[in-house]
């Protein structure tokens, strides 16, 4: 079925565009939330968590 909207996309293509936009929006939200958790991780100062030491090193 051909859609007559200005975009000129058929329904399937329009859904794919919506899917891609939705995926980017959700991924961005997730990334931001996990970035906030990273701050909590850095505050734990767990000596077994070498990720903190690696990320702080080299300065």
């Amino acid at each position, binding site marked *: 079925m051909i859609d007559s909207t200005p975009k000129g996309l058929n329904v399937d293509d329009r859904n794919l565009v919506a*899917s*891609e936009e*939705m*995926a980017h929006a959700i991924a961005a939200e*997730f*990334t931001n*939330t996990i*970035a906030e*958790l990273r701050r909590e991780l850095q505050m734990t100062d767990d000596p077994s*968590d070498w990720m903190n030491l690696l990320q702080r090193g080299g300065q």
Partner: protein
Amino acid sequence: MTGLPAVAALRKARAWQPWINCFVTIDDTAGDRAEQLAAVDQSDADSAAPVQLRGIPVAYKDAFVVSGRIPGAGSRVKLAQPTARADVERILSRSGTVTIGTLHLDEFSYAATGRSEVLGDCRNPWNLEHATGGSSSGAAAAVAARIVPLAIGTDTGGSVRLPAAWCGVLGFKPTFGTVSTAGIVPLSPSQDTVGLLSTDVELLRQAYHALLGNTLSRVRPRRADTPHPPAGLRIGRPTDVHLQVADEDALAGLHIAEKALGDLGAALVETELAYMPACDTAAAVVTASEAAALHGRLLHDHAGAYQLGTRTRLRVGQLLSAGTYVDALRYRSVAIRRAMAETFTDVDVVLTPVAPSAAPKLTDLPPPSSPGLSRNTKDLLFYTRTFNYLGFPSISVPVGFTEQGLPLAVQLTAAPHADDVLLNVAQALQDLFNWSSRQPQLPSPANNRGRRPFV
């Protein structure tokens, strides 16, 4: 031999299937196998197998390799031929159960509605206009309709507990890692857990222990030593701030369980679950990242074969960085320490809703073709997903019905390896409410406003 439970199960399956669409395959040879099993000398059976499992008909979510069949996984995407059957099905069959078929599911277990473009929607036996939930949709519907007394599903974010709650049956997710997931189509291997659904706590316990006793790890959970549970147990109730996504029906179920557990002698205490929102997002990140990695080649080669909702979710995983995934995993150890320190030092069991509501109408849930499926159904897993991320055991237990006749349920969660404590509390609630005596009735054109079967 027509009185054999497996033969009766096959008969019920054929009668209900046109109405609720819970099966993907029904194995007509199950009746013959049940007869052979009944005829053989039971000394040939696994001597460690509990007697209660012998002859019990069981059905499996179509994510398990059963009888060498390639699982359909609710998808148009075809999987490669597996080399071995699912450990769980092998162990339970060796214990004397009879596999009668495979069950409806959301595509690749990556949704929670029970809606499917590929299989058609699964329908709730209590009201055919309503959803079963998912992703172990068929497992919950088949047990609710009393087709099988035991069904096996998987639970990565609530996929056993949510449909169990909406269909009014028990849905048990054991401690992560205690039951083998070999021979099961994975979604997120660091969270995937085999789940058991039943209307009988004791049967569920027997099946769970049979599975434990046959896993390589030989993990033995702590046996509950409370003689008359839940007397003496400390039950944690979340503070109101954690109940904001729950509607009146979900809160009514919670209040019913609180009163019952208090009357049975449990001590109810308020508990903080402040780590839940962070865990919810971290769990979603872990699931999306792992699922995207697993589906990478298939998604590249066969993108158009996936339902658009699934495809969107997998695409989210592709867009997340490895750093984000690693941080989401690192937070798990922090969250486990917080959960143990802030919650499970003061309480033995946490009581929460399972879902934000009772089963909604199918038309109130987005179709699997919706790219917004993930966002629209986000809250459905709020109370369940955290405990997959933490790996803690959790069970959905029916506690009654709404005024519209839809099941109400609560979720009980305990610290790792306290699975039997949960089962004991579930048993006490089942004894008290006797909820399993009420059964959905097989529809007919006469009692269903002249409607015809759906499939």
